[in-house]
């Protein structure tokens, strides 16, 4: 968000260098032009980020019910929404599930994505074709993947269990039907979905690393693992940060995949903050409580964003 504002200012500063008869007027015009370039971003952000954000925070302190849509009245009720959400056992569960889900998904997606990126970084026949085939999960809409995976993971008739059965690895795994397994299964599906994204970005980063470095390393007699650790990883660091931050942002707010796979069940085993805010706002129509959970999500993302910006700043220096 912030980066777009910064880049919008930069060209304005360099563009106003023409000489002019009246320096005062010229400066004013330049100022105006600068603001002109900044304005769309500011207006856009205030309208589409600022306003909803403020509304959401305000709403979390209001008794906001279906009646509000008719009367427009939403009396403030202090911290009632917050205390009722925090006292709900489900909130603690959902928070924990969200953290496990995010950490598990990112770890899996990143490791496999990186491994594949390194793999495809070598040239070999059909490499390009294979690489584009691996992108497929990314192109399939999330809900479609969810529904297909729900069929695949069905305990009795699913393809996965049937396959496991034929190769003699049992075949009674309760992927989505056991509260102990469901979260893991949802994480596995999300890893599958996230691999292409991680691979593409990391592959792009790998292409940027100068080949000379590897040549020098091989002249020095560095092993493959040593080269990876001392050249690939450090050179890839900025890209890794971007991948992890973007991955975090899209994973922590997960909703559609879980709705399609398990609907938060069985027995709330896959409730996350995303599904909880959906349930509060759109099933129970308790918009105040939904806003509270939404705010918690925003807060978590904001904390992460701050870390990201700080990490970037030290990098810049």
């Amino acid at each position, binding site marked *: 968000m912030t980066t777009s504002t910064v880049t919008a200012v930069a060209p304005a500063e360099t563009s106003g260098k023409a000489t002019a008869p009246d320096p005062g007027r010229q400066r004013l015009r330049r100022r105006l*032009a600068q603001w*002109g370039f900044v304005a769309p971003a500011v207006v856009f952000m205030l309208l589409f980020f600022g306003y909803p954000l403020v509304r959401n925070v305000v709403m979390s302190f209001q008794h906001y019910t279906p009646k509000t*849509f008719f009367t427009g009245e939403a009396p403030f009720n202090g911290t009632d929404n917050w205390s009722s959400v925090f*006292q709900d056992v489900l909130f603690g569960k959902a928070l924990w599930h969200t953290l496990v889900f995010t950490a598990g998904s990112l770890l899996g997606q990143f490791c496999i994505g990186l491994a594949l990126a390194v793999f495809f970084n070598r040239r070999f026949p059909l490499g390009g074709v294979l690489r584009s085939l691996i992108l497929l999960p990314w192109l399939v809409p999330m809900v479609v993947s969810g529904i297909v995976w729900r069929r695949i993971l069905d305990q*009795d008739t699913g393809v996965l269990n049937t396959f496991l059965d034929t190769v003699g690895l049992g075949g009674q795994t309760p992927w989505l*039907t056991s509260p102990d397994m469901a979260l893991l299964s949802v994480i596995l599906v999300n890893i599958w979905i996230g691999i292409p994204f991680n691979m593409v970005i990391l592959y792009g980063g790998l292409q940027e690393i100068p080949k000379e470095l590897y040549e020098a390393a091989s002249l020095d007699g560095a092993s493959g693992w040593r080269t990876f650790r001392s050249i690939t990883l450090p050179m890839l660091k900025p890209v890794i940060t971007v991948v992890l931050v973007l991955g975090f942002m899209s994973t922590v707010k997960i909703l559609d995949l879980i709705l399609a796979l398990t609907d938060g*069940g*069985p027995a709330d085993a896959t409730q996350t903050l995303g599904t909880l805010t959906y349930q509060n706002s759109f099933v129970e129509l308790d918009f105040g*409580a939904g806003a509270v959970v939404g705010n918690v999500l925003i807060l978590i993302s904001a904390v992460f964003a701050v870390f990201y910006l700080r990490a970037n700043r030290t990098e810049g220096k």
Partner: protein
Amino acid sequence: MTAHPPVAAHRARGRSRGAVTSFAAVSVLIAGAALTGCAQQRDSDVYTVMNSSTDETYHRWDAEAMARCGKQLGVTIEQQSVPASQVMTKALRMASSKSLPDIVQFDASEMPTFADAGGLVDLRTLGLATDDVPEGIVDFGSYKGTYYGAARSVNTLALFYNKDILDEAGVQVPTTWDELREAAKKLTEGNRYGLALSAGGAEDGVFQFTPFMWSNGGDETDLDSPQVVEALDYWKALLQDGSLSKSTVNWTQADVNDQFMAGNAAMMINGPWQVETLNTKKSLHWEIAQIPVPEAGADSVGPLGGAVLTVPNTGDTGREKTAGRIVACLASEKEQLTYALNSWMVPANEKAAAKWREEVPELDALADQVAAARSRTAKLGAGWSGVSLALQSAFQSALTGQSSETALQRAQQRATSGN
């Protein structure tokens, strides 16, 4: 959403010179679009109906009915269909932007919420008569004694069974819980389960649990009563017998139907809206019976399901009157019969229901079940959604290992804390 922005864009183009002004114009445009979005012009002869008929067949049947009624009343009726789960939130958003359609078809379990918010008009004041509608169905469309929703058809759940499989195994159609358990056990064989039902999240599972809860004398206001615990224990027993698939907790009612059609289940609990799909498989010989009861002679109480036509409170009494006439036409005896025969649901109107029974004798059991069926929101009104969520969580916990008693106690706590 609105036809005005292009005009504004044209005007803005003439003025734009420097970079600054063009950006100013953009802001003006955005503001303009936002403002025009609020004031929606209503065409005086065009009436809109919002429903959830997103399936091609239902959309077409509704469009045909609306065309007939529009012709009769001299107005044009437009149909706007959104997915069932979005009707409520969409209607609420439209209420706050003062752009409500003239008629909204709500699921009957959602209607109380909208009525409670003051969003609906009393249909009796609009001249709708309820003389031919059975009392149960008038209650179904009422909230706190006011008749807000006219049902065209109603539905409920019944026991569907595969006739060939039952005949082959020499199993009689079960009528009591014990018989159902025995029959399901006998019919379970190889990849085939004796019975399929939905205990999935969302409303589907709750809808399926209610006939077991109610027929056993349980009640949604007292979730941890022995009767409800017993009903849940019965589900658990079916699962432990191996007569139900373990995937039951992850199945919607549509999944249950797929399993039944694929021959993976000999019997299923489901509703008449599946008949259309069931009939696409010609080799499948199915019949229906009432849902078995705990003891012989007890009443089989199913959940009354279906949608009701409502007239939202738009403040324009003239239009509301006409909307009332449209609802009356769509819910008239003739239209009800046409709709019911198309959709396999039971007409709400008594006379239409009698004719319907003659035309589709194979669904007779369903009509009986409807007559004794109960509305989910009759006792709790707008509070149903909270109880429903608590109940879902409870039976899923119980079916995956917890004791029914503990699970239901927690559900009752959660329901009463009303978070």
